[in-house]
């Protein structure tokens, strides 16, 4: 058995679905952020895999993975800042307490 693209993609898919699962079922806001990181990592694996198997000459996938990392860092920084701001108001990190969007 040769290690091919499909293996990496499968791994990324499993990781992605785990991320989705965590995103939906978590109650802790920090955990939701963690799930988002997992999602992004799954994507990164995909990018790196494609770069390796299809386009190693220019490695565009790796460049995009780098961009994604930067943006992930930005996202988590902002997200946590917002979390802290929210926490200051509600004194809770339980997502069930944040229902201002209720129609």
């Amino acid at each position, binding site marked *: *058995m040769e*290690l091919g*693209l*499909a*293996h*990496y*993609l*499968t*791994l990324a*898919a*499993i*990781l*992605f*679905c785990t*991320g*989705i*699962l965590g995103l*939906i*079922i978590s*109650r*802790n806001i*920090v*955990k939701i952020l*963690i*799930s988002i*990181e*997992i999602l992004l*990592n799954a994507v*990164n*694996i995909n990018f*790196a895999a*494609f*770069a390796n*198997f*299809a386009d*190693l*000459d*220019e*490695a*565009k996938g*790796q*460049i995009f*993975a*780098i961009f994604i*990392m*930067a*943006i*992930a*860092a*930005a996202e*988590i*920084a*902002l997200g*946590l*800042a917002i979390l*802290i701001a929210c926490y*200051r108001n509600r004194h809770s*990190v*339980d*997502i069930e307490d944040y229902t201002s969007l209720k129609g």
Partner: protein
Amino acid sequence: MEVLQLLFFGMFALVIVVSALGAVFCKNIVHSIVSLVITFLSISGIFVLLNADFLAISQIIIYAVGITILLVFSIMFTTTKDDNNLWIAFKPRTLLAFVVAGSLFILLMFNITDKFTDFNKNPKLFITKAPKESTVKTLKEQGTTPIIGKQLLTTYVLPFEVLSILLLGVVIGAAVIAKKEEIPPC
């Protein structure tokens, strides 16, 4: 060599899946962060397997160190003892989440395993292409860093600079958002 690769891949993949599930399902938030760090580190191993040494290093620096520290700090700021008991929600959406995740996985697997090609009318979706001789040489001697560096400073220079502005904005924004509100003068 191939067997070794396969062995490493299997090991890393197992660790990734288990630790990612752990990160999601751990009851204690600190446990899940530890689990997450393990995931990140394993992913960097996967990157190594994928000829992406720069990414692997970046992964460790940004994710396994930077983001984790942020997360730990935020937990310190926010979580009280009660919040430690926040586990997964037992709501209708939990069930739906499993359905969604499962069906999404099945869909993705359809795609990956070429079962899709029958109705896609595009039989070779993922064309794998062997790299040039020069590239292989560069890789062997210097790794991917020169390739990425050249690309970033030529073709992708604009996104690169925009990214730096974004990060600057984030630094300021995060500081502004997270800082304590001043009591407005009466």
